[in-house]
């Protein structure tokens, strides 16, 4: 099977010959119709094992592509039967994939989690934290889970404004002692690849 890490624009990125993907597999690229898929080949029908190590391996491959090009990270575990099957998919989905690449171009994703205790949260964390951060973003997502006292959000931020965003997070934490704010990134834009399903 073919295991896909990401889809990007052709020409295919130059890959480090020593680069290792999931389960130590070598990493290759296939071009079709102005797009390039970065992938590993696995013998037989066995997909790679789903361990924390393989998750990080997937992430490392995607991050290695990000620095000079727009990248659509693939969901972990996505396999196709063959390169010809991949080419069919790239042709069929080409227009929407190119649109997604344009949408995330020049941007990275930053993730934020807000947690709070029952008492003293002082107003809705969605207003206190998500709204001001969303104002800095080209796009954002927000999943409040009131029962868990946890807010999970993601922001699509121009790569040169990551530091500004991080400083805003620190400032918001300073203003809201009852909230516990954590921020991670920069991530590939996993949360901003539309048209899934």
């Amino acid at each position, binding site marked *: 099977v073919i295991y896909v890490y990401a889809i990007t624009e052709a020409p295919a990125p130059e890959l480090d010959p020593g680069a290792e993907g999931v389960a130590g597999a070598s990493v290759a690229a296939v071009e079709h119709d102005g797009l390039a898929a970065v992938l590993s080949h696995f013998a037989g029908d066995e997909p790679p094992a789903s361990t924390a190590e393989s998750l990080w391996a997937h992430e490392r491959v995607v991050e290695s592509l990000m620095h000079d090009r727009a990248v659509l990270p693939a969901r972990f575990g*996505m396999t196709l039967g063959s390169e010809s099957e991949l080419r069919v998919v790239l042709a069929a989905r080409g227009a929407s994939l190119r649109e997604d690449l344009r949408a995330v171009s020049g941007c990275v994703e930053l993730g934020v989690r807000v947690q709070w205790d029952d008492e003293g949260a002082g107003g809705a964390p969605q207003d206190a934290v998500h709204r001001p951060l969303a104002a800095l973003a080209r796009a954002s997502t927000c999943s409040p889970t009131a029962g868990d006292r946890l807010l999970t959000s993601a922001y699509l931020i121009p790569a040169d404004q990551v530091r500004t965003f991080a400083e805003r*997070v620190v400032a918001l934490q300073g203003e809201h002692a009852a909230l516990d704010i954590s921020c991670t990134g920069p991530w590939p834009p996993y949360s901003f690849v539309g048209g899934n399903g």
Partner: protein
Amino acid sequence: MSGTVVPHHDVALVDLVDRLLHGGVVVAGDITLAVADVDLVYVGLRALISSVATAEANGVRLPR
């Protein structure tokens, strides 16, 4: 909040699991993966992050 400080790597792993299993582009119908193992890890980590200390949580990995 409890005072337990969870290594930053673990916080990042929670976010990583969220993104890789629920985000990302899907161009093929099959996610052929058995995610049972990862789901267990995920549940464990959700419990874990509830004790992340504020100071640790402020950390941000900036571009290399």
